Structure formats: structure tokens, C-alpha cells
């Protein structure tokens, strides 16, 4: 004989269970658009009672004790997570490289006619006009103006490059500029994520003491890990309580106890100083150096190499792109200066003298009359410091341009219409290694790099997008599913209530049986 109270109890468990199940459905629907939310599912099981059954059918009936929720399962894709996070690191690395090339390409954007190529064209045009009338002071002044504009255009590009670079990786020698650079703000937000992870770790350790999982904390943990993986190739080791050990290239960063070290950014100079003081082989680091520090104490001095991917890796690597383009640009400046200085100051070149009528004078003070010099004390010409020689800006300075050239150095000092030297300058445009070709090579290099980075980054974007969809499909909330569940649980609830009420009626009948 089964016990009526036990039947009543079975309907009671069903009512409780279905009410809780509706609670979970409600939570799923509420979070259907929450980022990082993983759908939760109620796992039901029949309550098991371990009574000896033997040959007694009543005992057998009594082993049925209703329904219970054994766990709230969180739809997760843990097997995908580490792969996904790796892809995210790669994505932000490639994106950053693409950004770098975009920045560089923008500096060189010449289609609007404001750039270096336009200045070069104007310069050659001025040389051509100069060759038409070599003794015309106005043509000479126009030449000097064009040369000066060319130098300034190089300065401008170099400055733009430096500014963009500084805003990204900071000036490796200046802590102030470093503190306002992208690398520093990125490191700061990474540190904030580390703090969040540490606090989630603590909460997990406190709350996930048994075998059941704290689903919302795990959601939060996965979200933070995804965010952290943007910055670099972090390795995660998930503990039994759900907390995470985070490390970067073997260096412990976050443990269950808290943050082991925060990322700092220091200047290359400071690092060099440290190397000298500690007898480490000096690498002459001129760029930003990432450190790991705790409580003002530096634990690891230079961990740049550990960031071989991710946003921080991308920013650190952008340094190379800037450096390489800057070197090319400096070579171009040097080539411009060398080309024209050599022709201007070669033996047999003569300049104009208008004081005693129009005659030619030899360039005796060769060094003084170079067209391009530096505007600082440095002797190497770079894109940043190339400038027109001040001699030409003085009154009558234009005379000092050597238009005439006599191959055997037997000058006719009245030959003021001799423009052999300018013709030679003009002819540099037709050489196979002309300045414009060098410039084209630089542009080609930039555009090719931009194109390939854009493609790589787009490809990686779609990889991440696909993974994202895949994860979302497996872990997200499907409204129809939830609504079906809702109806299912509602029906079960209604049916259980019905059973409960029938049972109640039966009991009632029993109670009134003796009346």
C-alpha cells in the first residue's frame, strides 16, 4: 500500500521543481542579450530512495520519491575557450599592425597633392625653369624656395611619423610621453582586468566549495579571460574551484591569492641604467620596456619578448615598422641632399656674381655652399633635420647656386648662360635610381605592407567571427527554446497541482469516511 502523504509529497516536489525551473527560464530570458552569458539548463532526476525492495511491491512503490533538480547546467564550450582566446590575441595583434600601417600610409597620403611627391615635382619644375634662365635671380630664388619646401615637406612627414609613433609606443627616452601613450593606457586597462580576475578568483574560491558551479561567476570569469587574451598570449590554468591561474610566458601574473604583478611601462633609458648597474649585457634599448611590478618593486625588468602577440605585442612590434620606414625616409633625405650637393659643389661648377656685372665665380668654399644641410648640429642628414643652407636665404644668396659647369675646368667667366650644372640636376630625374624611384619604393613598401596586414587582419576577423558564432550558438539563449521550456514547466506545474488537488480530495474523502 502506498502512502497518500507520500503521493502528496511527490506532487509537492514537482511543484517546487517546476517553479524553480521557471525561475531559470526567467533568468535565461532576462539575460538573452547579456554579453558572456551562458544559457543555463535545469537537470531533473527522479529522487532515488535506496530501500530494500525484496518481494514487496509496496517497498518498490516507496522507492519512487518524486523529482529533484540535481544541477543547473551551464552551456559552456570550455574545449573551445583556449583556442578562441588564442585567436583573439592574434586578432588584436594583426589589427594593431594594420592600424600601424594605416597610420603610416596616412602620413604618406599623396593623392591630395600635399605630400612629398608634390614637393618633389615642384622642385624639379623649379630646376627646369632655372635651366631656362640660369642668370635670372627670380628663377634662382624660386629654385631655393622649392628646395626649402621640399626639405620642409620631409621634416613634416618625419614629424608626423614621430608624433604617430609617440602616441602609440611613446618616446622611449621620455617617461612623460610614455605615460600618455597607447602602450601605457593599454597596460593600465590590462591591469584593471587583472584586478577583476583576482576578485572573481576570490569569490569563486569562497563560493564554489562543493561540486556545483557558481554559473554567474564563471560567466564573469570567462568574460574577463576573453578580455585579457586581447592583450597577449596568456596561459590559463583552471582550478577545481573554477579560479584561474594566469601566466604569461612562464611568469605568474594572477593566482588564486590575487594579482602577482602588474604591468608597468618604463623608458629604454631606465632599463639601460638597470642593465649597467647589474652587469647585464647592455642592449641599448631605446624604446618602451614592459615590466612586471608589485608594490613599487620591479619583479621582471624587460618582458617585451613575452608579448609576441596580442594588442601589446602589436604595439611593441609597430616600433619596427616605424623604424624601418623612418630609416628609408632618412635614406631618401640623405639621397636628395647628396645628389644635389654633389652637383652643386663639384669641381668645375661655377656660381654667379652680379656685383661686377654678370660674371661667374668658382665655388672655392665648396663646403659653405651645399644646397641641403642639417638644421641641428648633427652631421648626418635625416628626414627630420634636412634643411636648406642658410647661405641661400641671405641677400643675394641666390647667386651662390652653381648653374654653370665646365668639364675641364677652363671657365669662360662671361658664360652666364651656361646651365650645364642645372641640366645635370634635371637629369637626375631620369636615372634608374632617381629620387622619385626611391620614393616610389618606399610608398610601394608601405602600401604592400598595408595591403597584406589588412588582408591578414580581415582573415583573422572572420576566423574569430566564426568561432564567436559557434560559441554563441552553443552557449547563448534561444528564445523559442526558452518559451518551449516555459510552457513545458508551466504544464508540468499545472499537472502536478492537479495531482496535488486530487490527492487532497482523496485524503478528504478518507477523513470523512468515518462520519
Amino acid at each position: 500500500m502506498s502512502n497518500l502523504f507520500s503521493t502528496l509529497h511527490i506532487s509537492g516536489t514537482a511543484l517546487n521543481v517546476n517553479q524553480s525551473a521557471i525561475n531559470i527560464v526567467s533568468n535565461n530570458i532576462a539575460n538573452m542579450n547579456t554579453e558572456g552569458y551562458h544559457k543555463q539548463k535545469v537537470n531533473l532526476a527522479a529522487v532515488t530512495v535506496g530501500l530494500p525492495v525484496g518481494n514487496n511491491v509496496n517497498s518498490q512503490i516507496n522507492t519512487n520519491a518524486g523529482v529533484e533538480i540535481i544541477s543547473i547546467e551551464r552551456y559552456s564550450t570550455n574545449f573551445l575557450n583556449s583556442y578562441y582566446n588564442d585567436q583573439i590575441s592574434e586578432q588584436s595583434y594583426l589589427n594593431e599592425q594594420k592600424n600601424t600601417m594605416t597610420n603610416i600610409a596616412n602620413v604618406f597620403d599623396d593623392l591630395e597633392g600635399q605630400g612629398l611627391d608634390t614637393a618633389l615635382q615642384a622642385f624639379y619644375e623649379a630646376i627646369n625653369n632655372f635651366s631656362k634662365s640660369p642668370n635670372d635671380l627670380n628663377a634662382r630664388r624660386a629654385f631655393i624656395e622649392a628646395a626649402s619646401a621640399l626639405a620642409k615637406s620631409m621634416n613634416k612627414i618625419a614629424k608626423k611619423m614621430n608624433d604617430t609613433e609617440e602616441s602609440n609606443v611613446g618616446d622611449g627616452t621620455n617617461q612623460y610621453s610614455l605615460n600618455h601613450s597607447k602602450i601605457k593606457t593599454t597596460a593600465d586597462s590590462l591591469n584593471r582586468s587583472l584586478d577583476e580576475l583576482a576578485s572573481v578568483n576570490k569569490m569563486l574560491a569562497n563560493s564554489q566549495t562543493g561540486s556545483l558551479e557558481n554559473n554567474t561567476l564563471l560567466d564573469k570569469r570567462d568574460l574577463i579571460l576573453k578580455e585579457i587574451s586581447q592583450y597577449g598570449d596568456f596561459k590559463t590554468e583552471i582550478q577545481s574551484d573554477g579560479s584561474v591561474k594566469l601566466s604569461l610566458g612562464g611568469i605568474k601574473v594572477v593566482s588564486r591569492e590575487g594579482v602577482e604583478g602588474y604591468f608597468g611601462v618604463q623608458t629604454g633609458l631606465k632599463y639601460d641604467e638597470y642593465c649597467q648597474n647589474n652587469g647585464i649585457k647592455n642592449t641599448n634599448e631605446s624604446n618602451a620596456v614592459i615590466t612586471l611590478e608589485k608594490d613599487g618593486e620591479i619583479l621582471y625588468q624587460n618582458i617585451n619578448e613575452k608579448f609576441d602577440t596580442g594588442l601589446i605585442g602589436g604595439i611593441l612590434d609597430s616600433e619596427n615598422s616605424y623604424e624601418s620606414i623612418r630609416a628609408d625616409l632618412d635614406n631618401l633625405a640623405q639621397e636628395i641632399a647628396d645628389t644635389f650637393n654633389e652637383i652643386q659643389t663639384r669641381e668645375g661648377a661655377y656660381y654667379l656674381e652680379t656685383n661686377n656685372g654678370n660674371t661667374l665665380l668658382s665655388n672655392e668654399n665648396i663646403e659653405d655652399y651645399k644646397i641641403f644641410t642639417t638644421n641641428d648640429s648633427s652631421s648626418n642628414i635625416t628626414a627630420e633635420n634636412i634643411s636648406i643652407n642658410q647661405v641661400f636665404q641671405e641677400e643675394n644668396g641666390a647667386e651662390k647656386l652653381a648653374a654653370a659647369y665646365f668639364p675641364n675646368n677652363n671657365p669662360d667667366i662671361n658664360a652666364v648662360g651656361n646651365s650645364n650644372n642645372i641640366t645635370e640636376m634635371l637629369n637626375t630625374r631620369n636615372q634608374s635610381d632617381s629620387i622619385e624611384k626611391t620614393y616610389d619604393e618606399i610608398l610601394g613598401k608601405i602600401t604592400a605592407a598595408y595591403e597584406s596586414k589588412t588582408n591578414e587582419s580581415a582573415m583573422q576577423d572572420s576566423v574569430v567571427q566564426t568561432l564567436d558564432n559557434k560559441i554563441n550558438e552553443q552557449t547563448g539563449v534561444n528564445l523559442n527554446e526558452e518559451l518551449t521550456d516555459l510552457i513545458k514547466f508551466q504544464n508540468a506545474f499545472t499537472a502536478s497541482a492537479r495531482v496535488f488537488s486530487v490527492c487532497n480530495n482523496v485524503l478528504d474523502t478518507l477523513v470523512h469516511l468515518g462520519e
Partner: protein
Amino acid sequence: MVNRITTSSINSALIQNMQQSYNKYAELTEQISSGNKINSILDDPYKSLDIINTNRELNKIEIWNDNISALTNELNQTTDTIDLIIEKAQRVKDLATSASNETFSSDRLNSILEEVDILIESIVQSANTNYNDNYIFGGTNTKIPPYEIQYDNNNEIIGIKYNGTNQDGEWERQLEISEGIFQTVNVTGTEAFGEADINGTSSGIMGDLIEFKNTLTNIIDNNGQNYSDISKKLDDFTESINKMSGVNSKLGSISNKLEMSAHSLDSTKLNLKSFLSETQEVDLTETIAEWYSSQYAYQASMQVFTRFNSMSLLNYI
């Protein structure tokens, strides 16, 4: 079992597709409104390089075209001047022909001599023609008059000295007319007219003039020369005049060559310009057609999005 699909994954896919259609639509709109397919180097890096190169070539062609017209102008001035001098030399030759007539008295000869003096001065003046502030027959000595009349103590013309650059020196003035090709603009005075320096050589029409004048003076002064010496000079005049005509026809052929260069530059320019417009500018018909279809695509994706979102069990409970 059918794969699970979640509302948010479908939503994000739909939004992504809609973004793509919108991007395409916005891109085409920008192209049409700006008229350019490529507005920045980032729009199409490789084509941008082509555009930069083409613009540079066009700039060069403009320079060369300018140079060609400057050259042509100066060549015209040069041939005109030489023509003028040929005309005057012809007059001197005519005078010489009449002077070789032995019936002429010394009075007549004297008046011829006076006219010759005037013609010499006028020829020298023409040879000292200044164009664009430069003396065109002085080689590269463009700031001093190439010819200087030498006088003796009695103020009589005894020579015509050339002060320009000599034919064997650095006399050429050049301008670039196409890639690496430099065309000489000028002829030297010695090449066209020769000179008659009292301390140096005597050649060309200048030499003939002075020799003719000397012969005349000698005949008038009874200094051992006679009318037959004048007749001998006539051949020299013919030769010098032919020489000048020769220079002129040489300049004429240069002028023809320049005209041809200008033509070929013009056609290159046309080609480059059409290439540039093909590369950089928008083909309106095509782009507007595309614009309409992208508009439809965008509208369709928006409609799908709204329709999809209204489809759920929610409507049935």
C-alpha cells in the same frame, strides 16, 4: 539532433550582414558624391601608386610642353633674325655687284661705302638681338652683346669682334623636351655669321663685310686693289648667305622635330589622362546602377531583420 541556433547568434549574423550592405551602400554613395573611386591611398594602395606615377608623368609632360613652346619661340626669333640679316647681306651683295662695275667713280664708291657702314652697323645690331633678356647669338655669354664693332683712330670700322662662346667651347643652351632628351636652343654667332676680329680670324658674313669695306677703301685710296677684287668677293657673299640659309634650314628641321615631339607628348598626355580618369574617377552609369542595387540589398536586409525578429513563439502564447 539539429544544431542549436540561438537568438543572439542569428541576430549578430543579421546585424553583420546588414552592416555589410550598409557599408557597401555608404561606400558607393561617397564615390558618387565625390566623383572619385579612390580618394585616399588607403582606398586602393596599388592603384594609388599608379595614380601618383601618372600624375608625375603628366607634370613632366607639362614641363616638356612648356619647354617646347619656349624653344619654338626662341627658334622663331632666331630664324627671323637670320632672315633679316640675309636680307641685309643680299643688299650688300647687290651693292658689291654694282660696285664691281668699273664705270663707278670714286664718289659713287664713297656713297656705297657709307651705305655699307650703315648696313654693317645694322647687321651687327641684328646679330645682337636680345630675346628674353638674353643675347641669342652669344652662346652661353648671354649677358654681353656678342658682336662689337672695332673702330680705328679715325672712327672708321675696321673689324667686328665676336664676344660670345666659341663653337668649340661650352656654347649650348639646352632644355629638356622628353625623358632625358635635351634640345639645344641656340646657334653661336660664329657658326651663323663668323667674325672679323682685327687681331684674329675672319670668316662668314662678318668677315666678308669687313673685307668688302677694306677693298672699297683700297680702291678709293688707290691702294693697289681694283674692281676685279670686288667681283672676287661676290662668290664669298654667296657662300656666306648660303651658310646662313643652311643654319636656318637646320633650325627649321629642329622646329619640325619639336612640333612632332609636341604632338607625341599631347597624345601621351591624352592617354595618361584617360588612364587616370579610368583609374581614379567613377563610371557614373555603372556606379549608380550598383548604388541602386546596393540600396535594395540594404532595404532587403533591414526587412529580413525586422521580419525575423517578429517571428517567435512569443506571438503564439
